[in-house]
């Protein structure tokens, strides 16, 4: 084959590949999450060492081995949405994330992915939230704190969705063996508070602003697709005003609290009370409860402090 022929072949192959439309459909499979067995348990821990209290909560739940089997692909999904520092309480605290990642590694995970589709520029968010620098300290190649790869958003049919019938989801989140949701609890102008249900916004594609048009119902629908094995709410610092990104230290209240549940609705319901509100104040909690995604009546939950 001479050079001319070679170039011709390459050009033809390239043209052939390029002119094929990408076809990518994925049928959502049921998440391997443990379904909430009544009564829903909520574990709460308080203390100034956020790594320690996070570990204590998991320990009380039966250890990370209950959720992470050896060789499992784990996703830890914090809120890294904003270009804010840890003190400003707009993102999940890096120590809470690090504790969960460390425990998952110790349980024998094959990989632990940490990502979020950020609102501000992703490199600034990952860096200034403190999460990426903190995870780099672990120095384990199984930890992957990577930016969102736009190619990995795939359309998913939302079976039983009341408001949304289809949306783009992040492939790695869909394919995880164990999905751990780690929201930070904070104020939000539209939904009142942003908690675990809202944190799913970080694994969906498309123009997310449209979710706001009926936010409670939409969030409940989205949460039928990805069912976390475990929800850990970071309430170490609560952003009380000017959420979800805040910026003023005066708006932050230090609570030194981490709570966890296998029931995502119960976790949100309990976290709401930390702001002095009742669970029914948050429309996504109510919508999810009505769809049977979990328990919002705290009197039916067992709350354990460690």
């Amino acid at each position, binding site marked *: 084959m001479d050079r001319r022929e070679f170039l011709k072949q390459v050009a033809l192959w390239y043209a052939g590949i390029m002119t094929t439309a990408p076809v*990518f459909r994925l049928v959502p499979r049921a998440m391997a999450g443990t379904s909430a067995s009544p009564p829903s348990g909520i574990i709460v821990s308080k203390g100034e060492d956020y790594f320690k209290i996070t570990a204590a909560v998991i320990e009380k739940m039966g250890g990370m081995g209950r959720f992470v089997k050896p060789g499992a692909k784990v996703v830890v999904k914090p809120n890294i949405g904003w270009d804010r520092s840890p003190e400003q309480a707009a993102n999940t605290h890096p120590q809470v994330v690090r504790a969960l990642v460390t425990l998952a590694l110790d349980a024998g995970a094959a990989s632990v992915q940490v990502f979020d589709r950020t609102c*501000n520029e992703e490199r600034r968010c990952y*860096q200034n939230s403190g999460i990426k620098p903190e995870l780099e300290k672990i120095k384990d190649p199984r930890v992957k704190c990577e930016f969102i790869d736009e*190619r990995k958003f795939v359309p998913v049919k939302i079976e039983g969705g009341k408001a949304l019938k289809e949306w783009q989801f992040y492939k790695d989140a869909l394919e995880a063996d164990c999905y751990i949701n780690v929201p930070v609890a904070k104020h*939000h102008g539209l939904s009142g508070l942003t908690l675990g249900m809202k944190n799913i916004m970080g694994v969906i594609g498309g123009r997310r602003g449209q979710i*706001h048009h009926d936010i409670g119902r939409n969030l409940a629908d989205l949460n039928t697709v990805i069912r976390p094995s475990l929800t850990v709410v970071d309430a170490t610092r609560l952003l009380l005003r000017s959420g979800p*990104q805040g910026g*003023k230290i005066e708006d932050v209240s230090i609570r030194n609290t981490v709570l966890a549940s296998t029931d995502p609705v119960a976790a949100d319901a309990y976290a709401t009370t930390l702001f002095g509100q009742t669970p029914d104040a948050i429309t996504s909690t109510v919508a999810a409860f009505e769809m049977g995604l979990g328990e919002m009546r705290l009197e039916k939950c067992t709350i354990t402090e460690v």
Partner: protein
Amino acid sequence: MNKKLVFRRARQVCQIFFLALFLFLFRQTDYTGLDTIPYAVNLFFRWDPLAAAAVTLATRTVIPLLLPALAVIGLTLVFGRVFCGWICPLGTLLDGTARVIRPVSRPLRPLRHIKYVILTVVLVSAAFGLQLAGWVDPFSLLVRGMVIAVDPLFNALVTAGFDAVYFHGPGWATAVSEPVYDAFKSFILPYKQSLFIWPAVSLVMLAGVFALELLGRRFWCRNLCPLGAMLALVSRFSFFRRKPLLACKNCEACHHECRMSAFDDDRRMMAEECNLCLDCLEFCPKQITTFRFTPPVNRAPVDVTRRHLIGAGLTGITLPFLVKIDAVAKDPSRRVLRPPGALAEEDFLKTCVRCGECLKVCIQNALQPVLLEQGLDGVFTPRLVPRLGYCEFNCTLCGQVCPTGALKRLTPAEKHAFVIGRAVFDRNRCLPFASSTPCIVCEEHCPTSEKAIRFDEVVVTGAGGAALTLKRPYVITDLCVGCGICEKVCPLPGPSAVRVYPAGEISSDLYPV
């Protein structure tokens, strides 16, 4: 290796070094995890005497940032136009294309005077307040062309190849291609695909410089480059020169081979045209050429006539007035949003050399080149286009890379307070007003710590007749800094229902009442 070849190799190594430095700094013109860029990425503009002269004349101030340009003048005073032959990355790239783009015609009659004409127009215009350096400065042409067209195009082509494998290739192919792609992304490709308005314009301008090689080697450098002209004038006084100063009778080698065409019709060498490439050490059949320190004696006059210069001077005086009488430049409704830290509009236009560094570094790809929106004066200056990308609240990179101080270097606190413009709601389109649909995405994203966008809660009758509680946004104008994130994230299709408009002081001179 023979001794003469050593000199050529030394020159080539030097050229490649500076080209590599240029490309390295180009790639470093980006956020790297630090709020401050650790390299002087704008170095090539800061040692550019043309930019320094044009900005100094236009603003009538000495810009300390541009003082390194004196070093290039000093270098030229000693060694002549060695900058053109050994350092300039555009010159190196033109030399590099010599094997691909060969002159198609016999050499044209010399056009060396054009570069002096261009230089005169630029400097005289600058003295009368019109900054034209960005049109013809070699670094502005090169960097802008790379930022706006070449780099995004390169990324798009490479990425399309890897994407094709990713979406259509078999698993084993992806297993090979993705690590290669990651390596490309780490070292060669930009962090992400950037998009600019009308990349073809900048591409054609840059490609034109290369296409001119069809008319002769280093055509741009010999005949058009105003920086070359400036250094040529300085090198009339340089000490390091080629000998002999006269080409030999009956030998046409110097005439035919010199890439800078540095000999006039009377065989006299024009030291100011020589870029010290040292080729003549090799091609001289008699091997009599040498380069040595000698007193600066010039046998030939500068190849430009008084008539050319008078014409150029008059053009230089006229152009600024052509801009002054242009209503487009005075129409307040055509004002664009300037990047944070921008000087007042009039000073900004005089100080900006249209280099494209701020477009390159903008972390949200929010800065775009102005084309004809503001008349001749504004072409290639940066503007913020929030619907394409907003200004990241904590980012101060554009002020750090601006080589002339047209954008000031801001501290984080100054940046947070700097007013780029002010947001205005269009209630006819905004969802909670126009169609009683809950939204408030703008309020969610508003980054000022006391939110500049707030909302009223109102009870309205919903579509089904039932009462509906709605949050309707409004702007606290004094708190708004015009970052434009609200305009960017507004979920409406088409134009945003909240838009940022310029809010700077309106000078009475610019807008006479």
